[in-house]
């Protein structure tokens, strides 16, 4: 196990918006096939961390290494340079992102949403893209909805389309950002079941969530973040068992009530 290269390695990540420091040196490692949940109160920097990994945010210091490739920046003569747009786009396509507010393309059908990246980024032909899209839509239980527009779908269905859209790109790593927070309570479970299903298939997932029970059930490891730092990083049994740090204990006490 020791010589196996990790899929994702985040080292000393620093990020600030103006004078506000959001990430203060985050280290995190994911192995292939691992499911890791990040918990923490809002403002702890967990969503920002995810957005940095998907290169939607710039960061000021530290490295993100995905499958052996340092992403987002190159070092030329000792100075960091943000990569060019085309390069960033290629690296982004290696990770899939599922957003809290779905962000489906409103002018495309469910199938069209899944197909856009397959056609324009992966350069599949129309027929092939179509059949991949159909396969993923039926994987998330929406085979019969593939020609519906987002406005004709419920929130839970929209989020499942978004999951299909991310996974159809065959990403090395899937990032899920509070995927159930914008849903009505009765629609949460169908989305969580879908995520559980892809986790069981062996996908590598980095999940930001408020659903503690879900984090415990699905994850190999749970990371607790507070004020821009990783405070705890341990298997769920340990995290939810005898909490070691006072901050984690406090956080869990507040979320349970």
């Amino acid at each position, binding site marked *: 196990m020791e010589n196996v290269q990790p899929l994702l390695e985040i080292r000393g990540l620093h990020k600030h918006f103006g004078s506000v420091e959001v990430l203060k040196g985050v280290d995190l490692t994911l192995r292939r096939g691992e499911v890791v949940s990040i918990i923490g109160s809002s403002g702890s920097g967990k969503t920002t961390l995810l957005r940095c990994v998907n290169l939607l945010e710039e960061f000021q210091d530290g490295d993100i290494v995905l499958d052996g490739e340092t992403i987002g920046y190159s070092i030329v003569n000792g100075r960091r340079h943000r990569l060019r747009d085309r390069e960033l786009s290629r690296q982004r396509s290696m990770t899939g*992102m599922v*957003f809290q*507010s779905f*962000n489906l*393309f409103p002018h495309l059908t469910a199938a069209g949403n899944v197909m856009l990246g397959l056609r324009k980024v992966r350069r599949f032909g129309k027929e092939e893209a179509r059949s991949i899209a159909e396969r993923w839509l039926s994987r998330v239980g929406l085979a019969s909805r593939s020609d519906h527009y987002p406005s004709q779908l419920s929130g839970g269905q929209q989020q499942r389309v978004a999951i299909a859209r991310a996974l159809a790109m065959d990403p090395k790593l899937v990032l899920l950002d509070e995927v159930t927070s914008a849903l009505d309570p009765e629609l949460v479970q169908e989305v969580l079941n879908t995520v559980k299903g892809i986790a069981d298939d062996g996908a590598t997932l980095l999940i930001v969530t408020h659903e503690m029970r879900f984090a415990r059930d699905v994850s190999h490891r749970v990371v607790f973040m507070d004020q821009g730092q990783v405070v705890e990083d341990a298997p769920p049994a340990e995290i939810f068992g005898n909490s070691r740090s006072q901050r984690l204990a406090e956080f869990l006490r507040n979320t349970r009530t």
Partner: protein
Amino acid sequence: MGYTLQFGAIWASFDKLMSGLAIGLGLAIAAVAIGTCFGLLAAFASVGLSRIGRMIVTCYVMVIRNLPLLVLVLLVYFALPQAGIRLDKYESFIGALALYSGAYLTEVFRAGLTAVPKGVVEAARAIGLTRIQTNVFVTAPIMLRNALPSLGNTFIGMFKDSSIAAAIAIPELTFQARKINVDTFRVVETWIVASGLYIAACFAIASLLRRLERRFPKF
């Protein structure tokens, strides 16, 4: 007083009015088609990264919106030949109206652009589309759907403004009406019919556009 309405002379020249109407529509369609290109380019430039680009667009919109269309038409028609560019009166009018409509369409598209949700653009970036691909396949279609109603209104406005082509002797509806007015002295009838034709055409265009809007799904 003592004026009695007699439409006979007008119906005799009705075909001229109709061909005038067709010319007006043709001018508006050509101008708005070109103006749409100007407007799209300018709108994307105005939310783009280049400060100079944004400044040029701001100036363009401000100048055109505050300038009478007739001045612009005369300037293009009479001034370009002096600068060595030969255009016939149709080309020069279409050019002027395209320039004019482009400024209004810039604002229409800019409003449509700001109404595109930020998260949807991020989702496109997240699956690996480049900035240009995102604009072409995601931002532009959503923006165009948002802008469709205002685009239609702008087109109707430009169709009405095509009447100003009469000032450079293009035989469109207003020009023909004025000619019939002078030839027949059926003054009241002429302007009732001319105005009625414009209103009917605007109404027809508006209902056509509403049908078009219904064809596309609302977001």
